[in-house]
């Protein structure tokens, strides 16, 4: 299929079931809220290496936050309830509580709940206080600029991790331009994050390795430098590939993000677009590129 002069591979992105939570971080200024959010979502590109995948979903107007201050919405995805809970406790405790003037609230009514504030409260050394309002419990933990306010329970919902697009271009400049344009468009979709740096992956991976101790290794079929050494997936003329990985709270959000991403990519000077999959044997979700584009 050719769309806007760009070849769209007849394939699909294979994605997996994950568990997701949404944090609403507020502070006296948007800058401080963003600082906390950036810190809390740092080193969270892949569950394999980082324990979770996280990213900033959107900025929030004071009217959309529980305490009427500027805020930032963050999504965090993990593979199990216990893994997600430990990541949330660590990230809220180390990256949000430590940032001046912040507070942290649950932003998702989920199927299940995990206890975050209820465990962080012990930092208050017995001087913490709880407030129960409208059926929700909040913990007030004394800190050096006043109090850190954190909600006790955070909702957890089944989400999707690993939606992806692979952009194939003649050089880094055109490939990067297309990727950045796609990221900009995809970030506008509610309920998704792009967990990699700037939303873009240069070191895509494949399952397995020649080394027995490694479960994943560089995506050799997409490395231009290995074109004559391995079975390649790169058409002639392709000298750079970037991947965009998408995690979302539901199928629609991931599909919508992939759709706007595809359209943005196809407005740039790229050769083709494809997606990563494992033959449909590993993931529960399939996002077919042609189908997504037809529905745009």
């Amino acid at each position, binding site marked *: 299929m050719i769309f806007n002069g760009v070849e769209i591979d007849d394939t699909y992105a294979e994605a997996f079931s994950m568990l997701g939570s949404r944090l609403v971080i507020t502070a006296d200024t948007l800058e401080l809220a963003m600082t906390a959010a950036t810190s809390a979502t740092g080193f969270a590109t892949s569950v394999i290496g980082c324990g979770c995948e996280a990213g900033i979903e959107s900025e929030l107007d004071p009217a959309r936050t529980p305490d*009427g201050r500027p805020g930032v919405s963050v999504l965090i995805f993990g593979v199990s309830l216990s893994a997600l809970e430990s990541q949330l406790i660590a990230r809220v405790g180390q990256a949000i509580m430590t940032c001046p003037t912040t507070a942290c609230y649950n932003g998702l009514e989920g199927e299940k709940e995990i206890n975050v504030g209820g465990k962080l409260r012990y930092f208050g050394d017995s001087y913490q206080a709880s*407030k*129960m309002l409208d059926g929700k419990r909040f913990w007030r933990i004394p800190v050096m600029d006043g*109090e850190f*306010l954190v909600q006790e329970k955070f909702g957890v919902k089944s989400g999707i991790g690993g939606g992806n697009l692979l952009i194939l271009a003649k050089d880094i400049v055109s490939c990067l331009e297309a990727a950045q344009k796609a990221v900009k468009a995809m970030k506008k979709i509610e309920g998704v994050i792009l967990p990699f740096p700037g939303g873009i992956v240069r070191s895509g991976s494949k399952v397995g390795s020649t080394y027995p101790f490694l479960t994943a290794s560089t995506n050799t079929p997409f490395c231009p430098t290995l074109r004559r050494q391995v079975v390649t997936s790169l058409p002639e003329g392709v000298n750079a590939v970037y991947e965009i990985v998408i995690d979302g709270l539901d199928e629609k959000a991931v599909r919508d993000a992939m759709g706007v991403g595809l359209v943005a990519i196809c407005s740039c000077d790229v050769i083709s677009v494809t997606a990563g999959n494992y033959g449909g044997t590993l993931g529960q979700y399939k996002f077919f590129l042609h189908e997504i584009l037809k529905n745009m």
Partner: protein
Amino acid sequence: MQSCALCTLARKFSVNKIKGVTLTLKKCGTIPIEVDGVLPEFVLGRKVHEICSMKINVGKEKLDLGDVFEVKCDGDEALIFEGDMNHVKRIGELMSSGIIIVRGSAGMHLGERMNGGTIYVDGDIGARCCCEMRGGTVVVNGDAQAMLGSPLPGNAKGMRGGTITVFGSVGTRTGEGMRRGVIAVLGDAGDFAGVNMIAGTIVVFGNLGSNAGGGMKRGSIIALGGVEKILPTFLYACTYKPTYLRLYFNYLRNFGFPVTDDLFKGSYQRYIGDVSSLGKGEMLILEKP
């Protein structure tokens, strides 16, 4: 003052149009009438003659409800009391769901030990209302007399959950022994508000009377319109802007309380106390600009 509560009612249920079972008092008098057991969950959906045959206490006698009230059924949204109810006690006692509307004032023990549902009173309420309340919401569009949300005689714990909003003033010992929940008062609060409080939150938009919080262990008393006298067992800690108060103000704004920017963004003096007790409670006093 009235407009606030009425706005809330209108917004939520369009109170004047709400249809249900209306009980109109046939004759005003001084003999106490006790309507415990006359609750939305038992009344709504039943036929008029069934409701009329319910037994209630009038003074020392047990009478049919139909002897005391005129009963009219035109829907099943709410249980409505009409007439001078100053001597009608125990409205909504042990209520667990539904809506009660009192068009006028209500007597003692309204909402006692209720654990759900909503009571709207378009007037004043008597003493010892909402004692040991566990849940639900009570909106009073007038004044409340002494011991609102307090323990029953002989008990230590008062209100244990739910929300009470009073758009007038409250009497003495409001929130005594309070364990959980919110009491918000648009007017003034009498002396000894929140004495022996265990937890929970009392917000007073008007003047807070003397000796508030005496013996309190935990919990918060928020004074937005000045304090008569702070007990010497409350110690000044700091002046700061508590983030959690913003959540309460947003919550109360939905009830129709006039939350201004001064309250929302203001600084508060924090006094901790009562140090003669556990001392983990607090009194937050709005610092006037």
